[in-house]
């Protein structure tokens, strides 16, 4: 049974790596098509936004602490706080909000 776990792990790793390496290895030139370039330009913003919300509300023990972290994160990022700063402050906001929720 134990050797089967390793086969599972190899399959997981191989499939995941194949997905990641293929575009990077095959697309070697700058794409000139404007629509395609624009599409790839917008992908990161859209995909990160989709992944952040509503997942941030479900990541924490309470919807309210997640919401507080979202509002704090947007505000701090808007005013130019660094990547690390926004990440740490979001965590702190969740921790404090959940402490306050426990008091009531």
């Amino acid at each position, binding site marked *: 049974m134990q050797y089967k776990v390793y086969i599972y792990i190899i399959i997981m790793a191989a499939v995941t790596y194949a997905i990641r390496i293929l575009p990077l290895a095959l697309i070697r030139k700058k794409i000139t098509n404007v629509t395609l370039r624009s599409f790839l330009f917008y992908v990161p913003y859209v995909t990160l936004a989709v992944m952040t919300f509503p997942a941030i509300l479900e990541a924490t023990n309470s919807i309210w602490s997640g919401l507080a972290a979202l509002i704090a994160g947007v505000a701090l990022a808007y005013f130019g706080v660094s990547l690390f700063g926004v990440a740490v402050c979001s965590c*702190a906001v969740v921790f404090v909000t959940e402490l306050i929720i426990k008091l009531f």
Partner: protein
Amino acid sequence: MKNNLRWYKNGMRDGIPIALGYFAVAFTLGIVAKNAGLTAFQALLAAGLTNASAGGYAGFTLIAESAPYIEVAVTEFIVNVRYLLMSCALSQKLHPKTSTLHRAIVAFDVTDEVFGISMAVKGDLNPFYNYGAMTVSIPGWALGAFFGVIMGNVLPASLVSALSVGLYGMFLAIIIPPARKNKVIAGLVILSMALSFAFSRLPVLSGISSGMRVIILTVAISLAAAILFPVKETEEAENAV
């Protein structure tokens, strides 16, 4: 050479918040691995080789039920296919002359977070930036899974809860500043979040897995935006994500 070292250090610096967030998320993933019957070493190996949260979660769940290998392969493909899009975008961010070896190493750690910070650098991406980020983030991820298995539920729930939000804070730090400067991006961010919320709540649509939801919405919204608001080269350079 000196230049590469600077990129490497910058990558490590930006990789630290990722590593911390990874540790927390992988810790919870380790608990799933433990329940699936994996040893701490196996969880470390699986996490360190896949560097994927949804992929790891899906894989461990399937191992727990001794699913057929082909099912594991297909599931891994579906939950991770968003990395295909990210790698396409990254292929344009690297200098066209970047060697296959560099591409192969960068590919090993195309994750939501490392992708996010890689696209945020100004101009062409130097692979050494990714190596710096990988140096801290991969151990953070793999060790998180390892300790998740051995320490189980020792870490207080309040701490795990707080740490698991760090990754989202980072995403916000990546998308909000460009949205402030560019109205199209601002509109897209709001629309993306609204539709993502709708997809997670509406009947039928909420049956779609979160991995699939990310792919469908990313392709549909980015494509519509590309047709309606084509980007000029100069604009791309100024707004490097």
